[in-house]
């Protein structure tokens, strides 16, 4: 997933960014609402993590304007404001979840996964595709009943395909998911990772559509 993190506290922002990246998502981290607004206009995100008290304004206003513009990207509010009235205001303004600081990073990961699944319309984290059993919540995969270890980058790429099984994803769409590692992206990076995934999960799992992109085998036939 491509995640926008809006958090002005440097130490916390770093830790959250690293955690979400470790979960295999690409994170853009900004520390003010101005940068956040510019980011949502420039890029399509799968999830926004939003702090409320920011140096240049209130996160509620950003959320309201996001919803007003028709953007339905899931938003999880991360805040130190623990009053239930704030929480109700946040949820009424269009937030999908609300996490009060201090929180466990593992809980944040779980909520990010749950909100993203809910947004896709399938809250069940367990996906079965042919010989593969995938736990999107725990980031675990079993092939023919045996666990398979994926690196964070491999997971990020594979999760993108699993989230839309049977849908053709372009090379640039897949590169977007690895944005966080953009500095290292070379022309053949996607091919390298696809090759590694095929090696671990089976050759027929990912289908190449020449000059178009890749899609996940749905095993319908």
């Amino acid at each position, binding site marked *: 997933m491509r995640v926008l993190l809006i958090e002005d*506290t440097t*130490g*916390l922002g*770093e*830790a*959250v960014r*690293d*955690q979400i990246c*470790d979960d295999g998502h690409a994170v853009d981290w900004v520390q003010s609402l101005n940068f956040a607004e510019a980011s949502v206009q420039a890029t399509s995100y799968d999830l926004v993590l939003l702090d409320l*008290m920011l140096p240049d304004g209130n996160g509620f206003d950003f959320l309201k304007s996001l919803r007003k513009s028709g953007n339905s990207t899931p938003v999880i509010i991360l805040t*130190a*404001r*623990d*009053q*239930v*009235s704030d*929480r*109700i205001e946040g949820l009424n303004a269009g937030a999908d979840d609300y996490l*009060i*600081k*201090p*929180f*466990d*990073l*593992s*809980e944040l990961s779980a909520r990010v996964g749950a909100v993203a699944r809910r947004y896709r319309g399938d809250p069940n984290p367990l996906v079965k595709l042919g010989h593969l059993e995938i736990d999107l919540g725990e980031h675990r995969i079993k092939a023919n009943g045996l666990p398979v270890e994926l690196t964070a980058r491999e997971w990020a790429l594979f999760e993108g395909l699993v989230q839309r099984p049977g849908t053709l994803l372009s090379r640039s769409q897949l590169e977007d998911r690895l944005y966080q590692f953009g500095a290292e992206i070379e022309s053949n990076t996607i091919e390298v990772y696809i090759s590694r995934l095929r090696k671990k999960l089976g050759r027929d799992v990912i289908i190449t559509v020449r000059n178009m992109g890749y899609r996940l085998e749905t095993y319908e036939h």
Partner: protein
Amino acid sequence: MSTNASLKKSLSIGLTIGVSLLWLFGAISSGLVVQKEMNESFDKALKKSALQILPLVISDSLQKKKDNSQEIPTRENDDEYLTYTIKDQHGNVLFHSKDANPKVFNGSLQMGFSNTESHRIYTTSTLDNRVYIQVAEQLARRNEDLIEAGIALLLPLLFLAPISLFGIWWIIRLSLRKVAVFQFDIAERGAGNLSPVEMEKLPKEFKPIAVAVNRLLERLRRTLEAERSFTANSAHELRTPLATALAKVQRIKSAATDEPLKTQITDVENSLKSLSKQSEKLLELAKAEGGGAISQQPNNLVPILKMIVGDFSRQFPERIKLTLAKNEINSLLDPDAFAILARNLIENALKHGRSNHPVDVNLQADGRLRVVNECDLVAPQDLALLRNRFVRANTTAPGSGLGLAIVDAIAKGAGITLELRSPANGKKDGFEVELNLGTNLTQAS
């Protein structure tokens, strides 16, 4: 008069005494006027009698050439009310009325009115001054009439003073009825209710008091708001660095491969979590004791309770059995105060209840909130101490010992009764907390 005497009593007695004294003064003044007028009237009657008797006596005397001392017989002369005597210019009695006392008439022949010790006398004569007449009237009779007139003036006071006392008391009571309502309104409001008191219907004289009370309440409300804002800001300022520290520690832990180091990092992580929990509880207690448990508008508690239970359900799946009324439960309890209250009760029940039994959270249609957990019996002496701060039941479960103190502070602030029971209703053991958040709260506030 005592400074804390009843206004109604002092006004009633004071006004009655005042009115009675004025009445007495009025009666005495009137009595004196009446006395003067009556005396004049009596004198006129005396004079008229003399003037009427004299021609009759002379005429009779000329016709019958009566003896000097012969008296004139009358039909009635029973009580010597008027007596008279006829004298010549030398003072010799020509004749007199039947009961005429010579001692009364032995004075000089002074014309007009004169007094003796017992009588009022009027003396006049014929035009040629040869015959004089003296008519006497008893002063005692006059005084008797005057006393009767005085009594007639004063007697109503005896009946009217008590009626006046009752009337004054009743009017004052009626006039002060709105003041009594005002007094009741102030006395009955819960500690957390700082809304302005109703002053529109108060008598004009009492409005300054209501204005002063409302100003005081407003100042108190602002002070409490400042305190709450400070607490909220403190919470924010504490939470952010704690969140940063905890997140950093968790990141270090996830990167650490050395097991002893990992154990030490876990200790730091647990200490940070404990610090975070403890500071959260202390801030909640400060909020609860700072007032503001009553909201200006009723709020539906059902979605808030669902939200709180939902938070716990993520952490403790299948451990909470939530039963909600089908209707809205509207309460004047502040939503944030209710959230703190519910969170603490559920947290306590999860912490101290048997892990293989669900915690029963029940919000009934009448606004009664019950939280029940299975556990060993809590001794009555321990039950009584549980509301105190830093007091924990005989348990090994980790906790701050502030949960029930926070709930108790919110309940007190909102005027709600907090009941703790062990055994729980209908059970042999277990622990139950019950609060009535519905209509009673609205009345109490």
